[in-house]
């Protein structure tokens, strides 16, 4: 599905959150303001003129301060948000883990959640049947898989979420600051799996404040600041520059 070996291509992407000046949460108020022509919005640009390309099989780490637009950028890459302006071309299937436990039902057991979550990611029941045991084994949750996940710790939820999302090799794997919850052993297990993905030609985009993980997993990195790209290049260089800047600030 990729074009000329490109997995992600963003051209002049801008993304604006329209915050209503006075909050208009009801239809009645909206209608009144609309008739009076007094709908005013404060525009908050989360992304400004963002252009970059990720090649197939590459791994990109995104670093930056809180509120720099990292998560918003991942949502654009995951096809959750449409850019206000500019062009975002995402080629192939995307497996996003933007938030731990997104799409989990606390009342369902781990096993039932495997199905629910995989279906939400666009897999079929048959595909899940074929991988179920593999997913349970990867998660290392053992007998807990048959208990409702409201009894799980956040680490266990993370294990389950990763095990589902990483059971199939996607064209693009998108991770948002979620690797940090698992224990040492599980994180290593995930890193190994990601290396396998990369070896098989998958693309990885990763946001994390754990700069060591960026150095380890990513070949390239992108430094985002106030919605703009501050720097882009080999992961080690970018992380060094980012750390230097953060240290001095």
């Amino acid at each position, binding site marked *: 599905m990729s074009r000329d070996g490109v997995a992600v291509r963003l051209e002049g992407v801008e993304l604006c959150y329209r915050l209503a000046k006075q909050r208009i*949460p009801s*239809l*009645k108020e909206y209608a009144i303001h609309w008739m009076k022509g007094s709908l005013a919005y404060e525009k908050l640009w989360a992304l400004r003129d963002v252009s970059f390309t990720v090649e197939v099989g590459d791994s990109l780490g995104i670093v930056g301060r809180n509120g720099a637009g990292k998560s918003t950028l991942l949502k654009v890459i995951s096809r959750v948000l449409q850019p206000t302006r500019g062009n975002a071309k995402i080629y192939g299937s995307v497996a*996003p883990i933007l938030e731990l436990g997104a799409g989990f039902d606390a009342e369902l057991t781990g096993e039932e959640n495997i199905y629910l979550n995989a*279906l939400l990611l666009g897999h079929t029941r048959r595909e899940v049947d074929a991988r179920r045991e593999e997913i349970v084994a990867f998660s290392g949750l053992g007998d807990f898989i048959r208990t409702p996940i409201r009894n799980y710790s956040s680490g266990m939820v993370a294990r389950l979420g990763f095990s589902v999302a990483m059971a199939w090799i996607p064209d693009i794997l998108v991770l948002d600051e979620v690797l940090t919850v698992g224990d040492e052993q599980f994180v290593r297990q995930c890193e190994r799996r990601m290396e396998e993905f990369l070896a098989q030609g998958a693309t990885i985009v990763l946001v994390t404040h754990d700069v060591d993980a960026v150095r380890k997993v990513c070949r390239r990195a992108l430094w985002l600041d106030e919605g703009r790209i501050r720097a882009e290049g080999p992961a080690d260089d970018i992380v060094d520059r980012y750390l230097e800047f953060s240290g001095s600030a």
Partner: protein
Amino acid sequence: MGNERAMSQLFRYRDLVWALVARDLKVRYRRSTIGFLWTMLQPLLTMLVLTIVFSALFRFKLEHYPVYALAGIMFWNFFSQSITASMNSLKGNASLVSKLPVPKAVFPLATVIAGVINLLLALVPLFVILLVTGQPIRPAVLFLPVPILLAALFTLGAGLALSPLAVLFYDTIEMVEVLLTMLMYLTPIFYPMTIVPEHYRWIVRFNPMRSVLEIFRDPIYFGKIPPITHLTVATVVTVIALLVGVVAFRRSSARIPFYV
């Protein structure tokens, strides 16, 4: 995203749609026997009350009134419950669609499918009533899949148009409920057209719900295939509702992840 892309996306997520349908039905029939009985009992009780009120108090002559009313109530319950449930379903999953690239239409779609299954189950006691009251069941009931399909698509259109609004504005659901009540009285569900005074009849005639209801009730109550005029109007109304729904949904649902 083009229309074909959206359709193929929905097809890819078909197993998710069925899982959502199954969950919806499971919740509905949770306390299995009581839940199932209630779905049957609720329209029956309403029918009983209406029969007493309308044939004893208001006195209009309509043969086999219980069947007339019950068919109407079943249709209306399907329509209004599916719309409210569509709105709640998208609202309940709004935070999810801001974290996963799930096609948002799966939620209203699954709700309407669950509603259709529920309607089919409710046909069972309806036929029992037909037998009990001595109203013959004619072969025309085999035509029912057509009106049920049209009613489902009409309802889907309305659900698609309204459900994103329920996420963006908290008061949408209560306002829609008021509108639905008004619309219910404007639809000849429990009264025949003949009791509407001549010079007000046009209001009921122009009600888009009416023909969709009549083609559902004709095979059951009159035991005949609905006239071509009603069928045509119902089809046109359904196509319009579906088109409006799809366009409105695609425009407003893209905004949902921004507001959650």
